[in-house]
């Protein structure tokens, strides 16, 4: 096993942007498959635990199958693979589009997971050193930090409801939607209270005292970081060139 690459978060960001841009731009399955292999290689280089990313992709698999079916139902292109009467359920075109979406999502999720190998503080610091306004970079970091807390809050509200004897799995859809609407208000109010307390804590620690702020840590790019940025940009340009001309 090779030692884990310790790159500046900005270099990782460039790699992620390059991979994601290619994933969005490329249409041909062969190119996308090659890009997925390249992304897996990068993930291996950074010793990224891909199992969590694969778990996330699994969750959207049903959506991808649904997209494949929609593409088959509403376009006449391709050879029908499964049909009921005159209605095509799955066609080669739909299947191709579905696989395309699956590959695209897999590449984006895997590449974005590269950023989890840096702390959110380092990413924010990197963005600030790239002259991004601090408030904006901080907002992103706070969003990431509070998402699990919000998920926990929603989970708690559901548990509280179930403890009152409401079995969400057994009640009909119409009542289920009505019940969810009841939960919306306490959840929104709890989020607002959390947000207000957080803003008070920040303001009382001199947030935005001056237009600029200093930093305990400063990130410094090394030769290796520049090499990876250059390599990523060159490879992305090369792939674009090949894709457009061949």
């Amino acid at each position, binding site marked *: 096993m090779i030692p884990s690459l310790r790159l500046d978060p900005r270099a990782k960001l460039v790699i992620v942007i390059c991979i994601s841009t290619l994933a969005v731009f490329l249409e041909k399955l062969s190119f996308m498959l090659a890009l997925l292999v390249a992304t897996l290689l990068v993930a291996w280089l950074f010793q990224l635990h891909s199992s969590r990313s694969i778990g996330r992709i699994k969750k959207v698999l049903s959506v991808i199958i649904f997209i494949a079916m929609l593409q088959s139902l509403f376009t006449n292109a391709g050879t029908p693979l499964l049909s009921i009467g005159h209605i095509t359920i799955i066609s080669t075109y739909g299947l191709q589009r579905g696989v395309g979406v699956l590959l695209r999502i897999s590449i984006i999720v895997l590449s974005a997971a590269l950023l989890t190998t840096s702390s959110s503080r380092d990413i924010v610091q990197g963005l600030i050193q790239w002259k991004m306004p601090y408030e904006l970079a901080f907002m992103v970091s706070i969003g990431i930090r509070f998402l699990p807390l919000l998920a926990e809050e929603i989970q708690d509200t559901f548990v509280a409801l179930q403890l009152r004897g409401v079995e969400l799995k057994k009640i009909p859809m119409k009542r289920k939607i009505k019940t969810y609407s009841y939960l919306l208000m306490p959840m929104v109010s709890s989020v607002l209270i959390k947000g207000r307390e957080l803003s008070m*804590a920040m303001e009382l620690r001199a947030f935005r*005292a001056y237009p600029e702020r200093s930093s305990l840590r400063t990130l410094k790019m090394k030769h290796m970081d520049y090499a990876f940025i250059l390599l990523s940009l060159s490879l992305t340009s090369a792939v674009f060139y090949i894709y457009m001309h061949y």
Partner: protein
Amino acid sequence: MTNHLEISHLWFRHQAASDYILKDISLTIGRGEVIALVGLSGCGKSTLCYCIAGIIPRIYPGELKGEILLEGKPITEMTLPQVACRLGFVFQNPDNQLFSPTVEDEIAFGPENLCLPQPEIEKRVVESLSMVGMLQHRYKNPHHLSGGQKQLIALAAVLALNPEILIFDEALSQLDSRGKAMIQQQIRDLKSKGKTIIMIEHDLNNIVLADRVLHLKQGALIAYSGSF
């Protein structure tokens, strides 16, 4: 003792409320004094402290009358960052006060906002964490610590701004007995260093730390008689 904080004829009514929650409050707190503020839930203890910290009317809107002088200067003429350098606020729930991925970043947040040079920020991080006995947790994620430890980190983050006045808004209420003992010890230490402290308390066992106990009842401050 010189006066550190002076409140005169303070009235406050929340935006949507018909009646005032604080009615003609006047209070003088001397330098190095520890005040405990007691009263029933919803009587306005936190509201009074929000007024003192300038959170009202800046974040919580409402009708505010009267005057609050912080070190002789009207709080209405100060910005919140200016208040933050003089007054630290420790809230009830440590989870809503901690937002950084490491303890070190959490403590450095305030000094960084003040644009202090890097060596000074480093010094303040080490000093604040040492003061609350949490230096060994410097590189940990604050959310992996116990409730008491989180509250100590929240306190250290406030201390990094070197305030002379500290407000503890039921800061002990969500802690177990060990966590409570940790924070109580810190309050004693801060008191011995001459810091002015205002504690909002429900638990009468905690008010033994105070030099003076004030009871907020029906919007007015009265002498504490031993029960709410």
